[in-house]
């Protein structure tokens, strides 16, 4: 099951009922997936295919069967548009068999999910350590900067961050040593 399935399906059903906000959110998210999907396959022409597929999703939206996975429905259309483009350009029209997860694998939505996971993990740290880890490891501040801002030595910052990460590593059951 694709992580975003439930959310996208909800938006789709709301959109089918006429909810413009949910629908435009859905299309915006899908365009991210589609852009990554087509860019890996046709390169420069990707944006045309993104738009063509969005229009297809829009005009064919009444054919979506709510009993079936929405992501698979979108993937079927994207794949069809890709094959159609290959045929138009007289290119070899074989697209490897793949599943819907392929379409939804690499994109911003996935990154957002990863960010959520990181935040969940960080929440397990005490507030001061959490802020420090976020500043140094996520927001890219330097150790010197943070030491100065907090009025402690750089060594303290370094050790605190190191220990925090180590405890998170143990939390995950792994052996994070950096």
């Amino acid at each position, binding site marked *: 099951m694709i992580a975003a399935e439930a959310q996208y399906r909800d938006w789709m059903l709301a959109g089918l009922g*006429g909810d413009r906000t949910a629908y435009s959110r859905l299309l915006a998210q899908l365009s991210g997936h589609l852009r990554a999907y087509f860019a890996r396959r046709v390169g420069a022409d990707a944006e045309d295919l993104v738009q063509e597929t969005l229009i297809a999703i829009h005009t064919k939206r009444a054919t979506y069967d709510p009993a*079936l996975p929405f992501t698979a429905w979108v993937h079927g259309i994207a794949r069809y548009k890709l094959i159609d483009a290959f045929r138009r350009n007289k290119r070899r029209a074989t697209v490897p068999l793949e599943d819907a997860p392929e379409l939804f694998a690499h994109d911003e939505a996935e990154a957002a999910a990863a960010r959520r996971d990181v935040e969940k993990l960080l929440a397990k740290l005490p507030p001061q350590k959490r802020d420090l880890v976020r500043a140094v490891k996520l927001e890219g501040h330097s150790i010197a900067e943070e030491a100065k801002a907090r009025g402690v030595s750089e060594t303290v910052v370094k050790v605190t961050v190191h220990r925090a990460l180590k405890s998170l590593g143990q939390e995950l059951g792994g052996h994070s040593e950096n």
Partner: protein
Amino acid sequence: MKTDDLIAHLSGDLAPAPPHYVGRVLAMGLGLGFLLSAILMLMAMGPRPDLALAMAGGAFWMKLAYTLSFAGLGLWLVERLGRSDASARKPTLLLLVPVILLLVVAVVQFMAPGVNRHQLVMGDSWRVCAIDILTLSVPVFVTVFWALRKLAPTRLTLAGAGAGLLAGAAGASVYAFHCVEYTAPFILIWYTTGIAAAALIGAGISRWALRW
């Protein structure tokens, strides 16, 4: 046009989607196709003269049940294949059921002592049966392909075969009101040939007839 503008445009004039859209489009296409096919049969061939008598017996209904079961499965197939990514495995496998049932009856009739086996298989109209079925399926081809184009078939060859099967089965159902043959071997061989040929034609024309 930029993609963000396109999204704003598409969601800007969003109307609620019509409910049961797929079912209604297909019902409209198939209903109209049946009607036109029946008119064609009445004008070009005419109903069998002993229709009332035949409807009192079992053979007529066996023939009609055979063709209508294909029409039903064909409709199911098209309903699935008209949606992106829906599986059509179940109706495809079920196509074997009417064939096997009729095959059993056909074997029983064929093995019965003292029958004219040549007549059982060839009847009086084997030369025209499949061709007539294809002729009567033409209007249904047009209306069902029209309906399918309004849906979202993504596997065109399969969808075309399903639509052809539906058109052939509808044509055969209409033809059953004209044709006087009544033996199971005849129906099994010649009706199935007509319907299967329609499915093949449907698959063959799918590339350009269904592209969207």
